[in-house]
């Protein structure tokens, strides 16, 4: 595990924020840098963490829950990720990680706004038993998105998430699984705009290079950009 001083600035910022007890954070930036992983695993997650991946077709079933046919022909209530995170381990609230919130449809978005509201305002009536649920202490939400401009997010959402951190490079722990000679390249290419090479591509390249050699691995993984990649490595290693 890296010490805080060795971490890239964006990860230091994130650690500082969660350690200070900020419980509503947006992580944004290029894909494949470990934003979701960090949301699920970093900070106070003793009470558990739940993930929601937003799409246009998703319903509130994923957020708050819904009825599903039971074995005896009746309908049983199943909690959604947000309610589970509210309850946490029963003593303390858990962590809710909402991926790509900007892709959620209108209904879901409104529900998410309600579920991620401040503890004092957040209330939800369980249709199964009519009980009023509120988030337990310690409930936190990490929202991730690939949107680069935070102004594009709805103002109600921005208001609930006062802290936004741009994650522009992978967490060093995520790089340790790569061969040493390409770790730095993977880090640097994580935020290269439209010419970005994802961490997952580097994992595949590292694995393939062991058996097929660098040139063939580059052709298979980077395709049209294999020559540019290999030339850059040649120059870099001079």
């Amino acid at each position, binding site marked *: 595990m890296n010490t805080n001083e060795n971490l890239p600035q964006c990860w230091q910022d994130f650690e500082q924020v969660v350690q200070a007890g900020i419980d509503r954070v947006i992580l944004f930036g290029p894909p494949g840098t470990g934003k979701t992983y960090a949301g699920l695993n970093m900070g106070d997650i003793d009470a558990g963490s739940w993930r929601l991946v937003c799409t246009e077709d998703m319903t509130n079933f994923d957020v708050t829950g819904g009825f599903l046919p039971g074995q005896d022909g009746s309908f049983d209530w199943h909690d959604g990720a947000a309610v589970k995170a509210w309850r946490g381990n029963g003593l303390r609230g858990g962590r809710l990680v909402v991926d790509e919130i900007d892709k959620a449809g209108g209904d879901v978005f409104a529900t998410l706004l309600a579920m991620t509201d401040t503890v004092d305002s957040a209330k939800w009536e369980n249709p199964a038993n009519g009980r009023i649920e509120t988030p337990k202490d310690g409930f936190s939400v990490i929202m991730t998105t690939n949107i680069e401009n935070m102004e594009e997010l709805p103002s109600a959402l921005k208001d609930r998430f006062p802290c936004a951190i741009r994650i*522009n490079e992978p967490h060093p722990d995520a790089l340790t699984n790569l061969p040493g000679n390409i770790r730095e390249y993977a880090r*640097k*290419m994580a935020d*290269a705009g439209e010419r970005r090479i994802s961490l997952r591509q580097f994992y595949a390249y590292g694995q393939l290079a062991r058996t097929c050699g660098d040139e063939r691995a580059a052709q298979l993984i980077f395709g*049209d950009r294999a020559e540019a*990649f290999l030339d850059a490595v040649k*120059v870099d290693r001079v």
Partner: protein
Amino acid sequence: MTTIMEMKRKDLRPLPELIRRKDGANDEPAEWDIHPCAAERGAPMTAVIPRIMNVPIQDFELDRVIRAHEMMHAKVSPGNRQPWIDRGIATDRAMIVAEEARVNFLVAKAGFDVDILEDGTEMNAGERISQRGDWAEAVYFVAAISGTGGLNKYLVGIRRHRPAWSPRLRRISQLIQKEFRRIDRTRYETPLSSTKTASGRLDPEKELVEGYFHTESIAEWLDRLAEEPHEDEPEDEQDEESADSNDSEDGEDKVEDDDEEGGGVGNEKEGDHDCPLSKQDLESQQPVRKDEAGSWAQLNVKEQNLTRHVPGGLGKKRIASNMGRNPRRIGRMFTDPQKRIFDRKVKGNGGVVLIDYSGSMSLSEKDVLDIMDAAPGCTVACYTTNSHDKDGRANLWVLGARGRMTTNIPRSRGGNGVDHPALVWAVQQKQRRNAPLVWVTDGGVVGPGQGYRDQLAMQCIKTCLKSNVVIRDNVEKAVELLNAIAAQKPIKKWWPLYFRTTYKRQTGHKLEV
């Protein structure tokens, strides 16, 4: 053969984002702006700090080598050349071309074929430069294309008007390559491609990257070679050939065919001009090696409390006037048609006295006060530092200015450290262009914690020559000189032995007295 459709499918934009450096540049992951451009001299370019690269992106081998060349700039070239220009060791033009040579050498080392690096304009360039008789540009241009395929064509162009230049230029190119090979294979030398900063601080805007010291050394050498005039020497083709073959023997300098020399070009009458650089001069001058290169400390100026009033002024004098109070020149009543029987004072030129206060000068406080007394109205300053000084600590003290002086002389800290920056500062203090500048020094100019380096001494010599600095090496001579300046007597130039030796060694000529 790659078809147009295949070309379109390929994304040949280079990936400078991958490049690792050790000076802090390109460290944060971020996208570069890649702009396609023509594969012609002058079009491709790389700006490391703003992350911009103009490169040809077609699927030709030449384009690929140009891309590698620009990528190498992104890898090794300084983010900002201004600190190097400010050092004043070499000219901007020389550093640009020397950097081209270093980058091409490294591109070849990385496995790219730099022989194909030519754009077809080299012959025209050679012809144009030789027609104009621009020896300096001929030297700089040959450095820029040293090691590439364009060299031979350039020399063909040169021979059209100045055939005598061609062997010298080819030799310069060979010596550049030889120097790079030497640096590359010497383990204790700083690597050619190093981007570690000399200070260890990560600041690509301000810090000096180590690898570029090699470029600077080559550039300073090119400046020397480009200088005119040099003594002409009769051409001796036999010597030329034997020198070339000697180099071939050690396997380092493959002498390329000079058969074009007689191959139908260079037959014009113009071609009989001698080369401005004699063979002897060329072979006797060497680039300064990295371990022979030095650097100055940062100059930190402090003005002492100038409490004592110093009456008078250097060069101040009375001249006859036709108005006044006391008719001191009554005799003019009858001899001067304008009857200028009074006096009026005119200001002197002022002047600057710079005192090397290092240990080797062995100056006492009294010596410094004596010099100050002899220089009324002048700006007087002394400088000294040592290798232990931290950033920001004063190393140049203003002891006298604007008719006032201090009685509080600082203690010497043993070393020099800032001779050239202090000299440049002193030049800037001159009240008038023709105000005298006296430098009291023994010529033992050294950087902090370093030995005497010809490179640094040459920098001081050049500034002295350019700004007409008069040097004296001890108090008596300095006071004598200041008195002579005050009396407006003719003054004699003098150079310390250090400077005379360095100048002779570096240029092959004597310093004029």
